[in-house]
């Protein structure tokens, strides 16, 4: 399958005063057409920045982003507009991402006029009504002329999803798209997003900090686990959840509470060597997880930067960035 979006060695840093903060480092990532891909990580791992670069809202500091095989930075005119129309993003906070002074019709019709997808008000109203129906905001007339503050959080997030659909995209980046809505309606929204793959031929990249939610969303797809600006493990979801390889993935999975009292209380927790998350401005040398890693190998992990590779003779086909693992060593607990 030809990847629809691709990162080639992408890095991105932001400047705080004169100090550059490396938020993403050397990311290689392919988004295959119509797959479920999930980016998972804790705050500050670079998952939102990745989403913004994928959707063209940010440019990489170095490296290339390919859309349908073509370098995005070289696209001009109609080709560039085609890319921007084709890749849409849903932001996390439905309270902040909708303009409070515009009605739902204004919000949804603006991109339609901007991209000349409609030519007059009648067409625009029809198309907006169609979009609202797609996201189950019915009856349409109850919603279309309202302002965002008149809707509930769940309804607003549906408007955000409808807005992402205005330009008939082929890829939607959903950045924590359900984390601000209530538990009881979260799965409904997620199921709706998942159904769009088949009904609208959209590839969905789902960004979340919640591994259980990622597992549910991408069971037939892949998960990429990020830590401090790098992908540390990527693989098919059943592999990654069932046979986690990278120490960080293992620690994360062991730490997550489960909604089952007996299971969650009998879980074995892996202890970190340190609970302090390094600052992005003072990243440790070698593998950036090494100061916390329970299986740290002196002279290896603090000396060389690990690259993604499969683990030899493993039950999992995931690629991991961990030198002891990819060089075929067994993990042994570090003792100073």
């Amino acid at each position: 399958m030809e990847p629809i979006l691709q990162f080639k060695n992408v890095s991105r840093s932001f400047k705080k005063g004169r100090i550059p903060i490396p938020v993403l480092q050397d990311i290689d990532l392919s988004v295959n057409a119509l797959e479920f891909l999930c980016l998972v990580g804790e705050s500050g791992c670079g998952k939102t920045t990745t989403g913004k670069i994928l959707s063209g809202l940010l440019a990489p500091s170095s490296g290339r982003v390919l859309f349908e095989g073509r370098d995005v930075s070289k696209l001009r005119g109609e080709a560039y507009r085609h890319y921007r129309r084709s890749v849409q993003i849903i932001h996390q906070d439905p309270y902040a991402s909708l303009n409070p002074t515009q009605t739902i019709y204004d919000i949804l019709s603006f991109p339609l006029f901007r991209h000349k997808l409609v030519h007059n008000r009648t067409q625009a109203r029809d198309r907006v009504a169609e979009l609202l129906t797609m996201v189950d905001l019915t009856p349409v007339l109850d919603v279309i002329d309202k302002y965002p503050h008149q809707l509930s959080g769940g309804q607003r997030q549906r408007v955000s999803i409808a807005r992402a659909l205005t330009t008939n995209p082929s890829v939607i980046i959903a950045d924590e798209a359900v984390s601000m809505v209530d538990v009881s309606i979260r799965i409904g929204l997620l199921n709706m997003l998942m159904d769009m793959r088949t009904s609208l031929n959209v590839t969905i990249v789902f960004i979340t900090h919640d591994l259980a939610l990622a597992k549910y969303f991408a069971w037939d797809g892949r998960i990429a686990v990020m830590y401090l600006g790098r992908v540390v493990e990527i693989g098919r979801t059943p592999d990654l959840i069932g046979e986690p390889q990278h120490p960080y993935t293992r620690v994360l999975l062991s730490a997550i509470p489960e909604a089952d009292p007996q299971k969650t209380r009998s879980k074995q927790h892996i202890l970190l060597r340190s609970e302090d998350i390094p600052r992005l401005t003072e990243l440790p040398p070698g593998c950036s997880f090494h100061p916390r890693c329970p299986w740290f190998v002196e002279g290896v992990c603090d000396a060389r930067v690990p690259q993604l590779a499969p683990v030899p003779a493993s039950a999992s086909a995931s690629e991991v960035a961990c030198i002891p693992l990819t060089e075929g060593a067994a993990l042994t607990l570090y003792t100073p």
Partner: protein
Amino acid sequence: MIGAVKPTIVENTMKNDVILQVQDLSIVYQTPRGDVMATTDVSFDLRKGETMALIGESGSGKTTLSLSFIRMLPNSARVTKGKILYSRDGVTRDILEMSDNEIRRFRWSDCAMVFQGAQNAFNPVLRVRQQFADTAAAHGKTDKAWIKQRTLELFKLVRLDPERVYEAYPHEMSGGMRQRSLLALGVLLDPQIVILDEPTTALDILTQRAIIDVLKEMQQRLNFSIIFISHDLALAAEMASRVATVYAGEIVEEGSVEDIFYRHRHPYTLGLIRSVPRLSRQQDELMSIPGEPPNLITPPSGCKFHPRCMFASDKCKVDPPPLVEYEPGHRAACWHTDKVAAARIAFAAQD
């Protein structure tokens, strides 16, 4: 500890180990659009050393409920009915009847509260030790050696480097460290109850794990009771000994953590449990609860959950179901608990 003031002492009707008893509590918010019935006829007991989780969605009234225990409700709120009885050392008082001075001392000495996003609760221009000393002084404890010793002891208990944190300013600590310092501050005066409002929501997974472990250890050592408010079912499964499901301002089900997760009888509890993905399962079959939480100015008639309930019958639209005890300590308010049980068994077959 507290100079018991005679007039507010009430007759003790509580069992030995019950330290907080909420009786038929109703709270409304007065707004220009009408009265919001945030809490309606809530009753429950909190026993010594237990952890009670209040779970429910935003707007279900769980924060209102917990604020009423320390009388911190906003001015627009009015308690229209009920009592909140608190018992310590054989003396029982109604929190709602305490004088201003009594309630001031009750807060923190008897009942501490850690708010949501509390990592920002410290004063940024004072050293942490100063804030511990101020809190102690406000409650009449001025023995500097005692304060220092207690503070350092508590830092050790929450797994912080005592010497480093004692002299630190809040900005010198990470979010997780601040949260742990705050837990230490919460138990400084040896309260019987600690209320935690979404204690881990703003934190990363690994920090969250550290806080959970620290809380469990603290509770074991100091034997206080915890009331915690969360929408996170996994956290409740991990921490709670008892769970109350709150919907539209009412407790709709209450029981031991096993009752709630394995033997639930209310369709809302069932709906919540069915909407949470679990790592330990293969592919799960999840379902949302249809619709949205109701408007509490004009709540639905009968059972407030009926517009979203798949088992709703005509009876549910008219008669509000009473909270009935099904097993000792397990109560639920639903006319169709048998149907919920059947659906629960079908869902549990996934494990």
